């Protein structure tokens, strides 16, 4: 009897497993290297988490496949005066559990985003007040002019007031909180987006299904989505090659050949909006970890120029990035609002000039300097640093390279470690996809009070650039704003404040079963996924 029961159970389970394992026609299975941190849209402000949740939740605006800003829950918006914006909200939208979307939900969302544990505080602080004109019209006032407001709002996902109140989730819950009383929204979701969360096991599997009542007409024909985080790159690639998943990202650049050679899968690549660059300590009076004592050679613009001209960006592209990097002269990528192609000329590779500049600056025999580099953060980060070190060696600079995992690297070089680095490699994607974000985080003088220049690890500081950054933050006329941006870029280039290297490649492995759009911010928007019949 017992064995009979067991064999019955096994047979049933086997049948169920067979049904489950064959991917049905409109099922899409994909893997990323990590899981979404939480389902709370106001939890951690991190690209993957927000990108993933963007399939379930929506903001007032959004980005299309080519990173153009397009309407989402707002149908249109206008700038009434520099500090007042009027948004018209979409009518007839319902949340997935049936509640109506209206102005009160937007106001509620903003308030929730300002709560103590919210990861969206910085974004919410761009808004001073939201006035409800009627159920589908709101007026947002900002503390000062914020020309990028509509862009920022793409990432502030709207939650339903009723639902959040009912489940005691009116404040963002985070990580650090031991109390779990307001954590409902971290494990449950109720957005307006095209996909509904069916089940979720953190770190293991999340299943989504199509929202039949979605207001829009997205391109996708996918009915069911299975998302699995797979942390090891080799395992991720194997899962793709074996046909168990339809898309894996990121895949290692060195695996492109193998993926393209395998039947039914291809490597999809394009420039990411992330700029990789080198920074130099220009604020300490004595450089740390260097053979030069009693002074800081990087305070001399000739030394900075010598470094910039000693690095061959094309060689890095061809030898290390397998042809897939885009050498850059700017600290922001072409997809970033405010980019001007005329300004994007990389520093010329000229080792003879480098040696001459070093001699003029009083270092004819070069010097030794330490360099900090992550080894698991950016595409081929450590290899790039090694290449930079060997290129600098040719002009007499001996680089003492310290490549570490990102947790240790960031602990050393960021503010919490006292900006402990003489020379480093870092990458940056502006969250708002606007130049102002780059300027205010990386390029302005460090200012703790105003929370600016936090990632300006080398302490570059120019008063005019600071002024320009304030002007850019407030200027709503596009032509004048662009002129300010170009001026700031020119100053930075002339002063060799940073050494931009390149835009790194996006690297996805995709099955021929599906077609997808690869967005420059490395977000996979399920609205653009089509399964071939």
């Amino acid at each position, binding site marked *: 009897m017992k064995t009979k029961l067991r064999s019955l159970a096994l047979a049933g389970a*086997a049948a169920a497993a067979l049904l489950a394992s064959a991917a049905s026609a409109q099922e899409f299975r994909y893997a990323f290297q990590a899981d979404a941190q939480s389902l709370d849209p106001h939890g951690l402000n991190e690209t993957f988490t927000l990108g993933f949740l963007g399939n379930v939740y929506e903001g007032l605006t959004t980005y299309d496949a080519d990173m153009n800003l397009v309407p989402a829950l707002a149908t249109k918006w206008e700038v009434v005066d520099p500090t007042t914006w009027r948004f018209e909200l979409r009518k007839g939208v319902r949340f997935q559990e049936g509640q109506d979307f209206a102005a009160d939900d937007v106001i509620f969302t903003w308030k929730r985003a300002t709560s103590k544990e919210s990861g969206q505080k910085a974004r919410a602080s761009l808004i001073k007040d939201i006035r409800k004109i009627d159920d589908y019209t709101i007026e947002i006032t900002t503390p000062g002019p914020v020309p990028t407001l509509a862009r920022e709002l793409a990432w502030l996902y709207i939650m339903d007031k009723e639902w959040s109140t009912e489940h005691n989730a009116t404040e963002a819950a985070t*990580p*650090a909180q031991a109390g779990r009383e307001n954590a409902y929204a971290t494990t449950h979701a109720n957005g307006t987006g095209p996909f509904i969360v069916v089940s979720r096991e953190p770190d293991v599997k999340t299943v989504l299904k199509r929202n039949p009542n979605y207001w829009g007409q997205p391109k996708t024909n996918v009915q069911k989505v299975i998302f699995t985080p797979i942390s090891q790159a080799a395992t991720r690639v194997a899962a793709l090659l074996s046909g168990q998943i339809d898309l894996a990202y990121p895949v290692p650049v060195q695996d492109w050949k193998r993926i393209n050679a395998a039947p039914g899968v291809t490597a999809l690549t394009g420039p990411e909006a992330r700029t990789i660059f080198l920074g130099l300590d220009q604020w300490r009076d004595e450089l740390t970890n260097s053979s030069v004592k009693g002074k800081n050679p990087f305070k001399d613009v000739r030394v900075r120029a010598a470094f910039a001209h000693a690095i061959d960006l094309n060689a890095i592209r061809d030898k290390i990035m397998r042809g897939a990097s885009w050498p850059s002269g700017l600290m922001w990528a072409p997809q970033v609002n405010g980019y001007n192609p005329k300004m994007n000329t990389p520093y010329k590779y000229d080792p003879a000039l480098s040696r001459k500049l070093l001699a003029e600056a009083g270092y004819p025999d070069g010097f030794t300097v330490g360099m900090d580099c992550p080894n698991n953060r950016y595409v081929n980060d450590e290899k790039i640093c090694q290449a930079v070190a060997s290129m600098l060696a040719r002009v007499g600079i001996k680089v003492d390279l310290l490549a570490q995992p990102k947790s240790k690297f960031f602990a050393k070089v960021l503010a919490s470690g006292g900006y402990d680095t003489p020379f480093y490699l870092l990458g940056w994607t502006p969250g708002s996809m606007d130049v102002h974000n780059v300027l205010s985080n990386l390029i302005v003088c460090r200012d703790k009070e105003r929370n600016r220049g936090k990632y300006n690890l080398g302490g570059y500081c120019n008063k005019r650039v600071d002024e320009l950054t304030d002007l850019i933050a407030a200027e709503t006329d596009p032509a004048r704003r662009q002129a300010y941006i170009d001026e700031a870029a020119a100053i930075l280039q002339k002063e060799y404040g940073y050494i931009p290297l390149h835009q790194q490649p996006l690297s996805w492995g995709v099955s021929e079963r599906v077609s997808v759009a690869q967005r420059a911010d490395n977000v996979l928007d399920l609205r653009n996924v089509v399964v071939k019949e």
Partner: protein
Amino acid sequence: MLLYIIRRLVQSVLVMLTVALIAFTLFQFVGDPINNMVDQDTTLAERERIRKELGLDDPVIVQFWRFVENAARGEFGVSYRLKKPVAELIAERFPATLELSIISAILALGIGIPMGVYTALNRERWTAKLFMTLSLIGVSLPTFLIGIFLILIFGVQLRWLPTFGRGEVVDLGWWTTGLLTASGLKSLIMPSITLAVFQMTLIVRLVRAEMLEVLRTDYIRFARARGLKDRAIHFGHALKNTLVPVITIIGLQVGAIIAFAIITESVFQWPGMGLLFVQAISEVDIPVMAAYLMLIAFVFVVINLVVDILYVVIDPRLRTES
């Protein structure tokens, strides 16, 4: 006997305290957890607030005592990364690791011991020599390489077996099991073999060496002289006497299987404790790392205790002495 067990338990508390202290000292060198918990736009003041709230600005020794105090109450804190109580996380992941470990241990013992006996008794036969050569390869190949090979052959080329995950699991409320579904069983095959290979080959070589030693002793010769059957000599006398050192090693190896499932679990994205630990390291999730290390220390302590008790059961001489 009871006194002996109590004495051992007291010793194990000391062992675990030491492990905790060493762990906390090491945590100072793994990086800054705050960077992984906040985003680019978080102000410095906010970061400091979180650091303070988590008590990360306290001296190591203070953090250590706080951990010990809480742990004594069964309170292991909340994971920085997954925002869930660590005890709950480990309870969720434990079934996956335990099922994998038990299946691997059964494979390792079930194949290892008979193979060891066989190679000892038939030293000159070519099959025995083949087994020994294979076991040498098994001992020397790194686990992740075996895993990747299996994935490439049976997952990517032949497409017989799933390359990652646990398949469909059945939730029994207090336990999730992959043993009741076909996809769960299929998913178990490659990871359990990967994990078992090293232990198995080790056991083969160990059993063989011990067995050869015992077969040379006087009482075996005497047993033969008495005209006992080969079967009785080999299994009744020789194997039994081989087992004392073998059990010590096997006990520790079972602990090692659980502890070193880390590599196998990351290669196969097996959602067990080892994977949780690896991810905790890369994100500097101190509460998870601390709790995991304590749990592993506890497992080893318990296994050692069980092994000591088993000695007494197997070897009558120890009984009379105590």
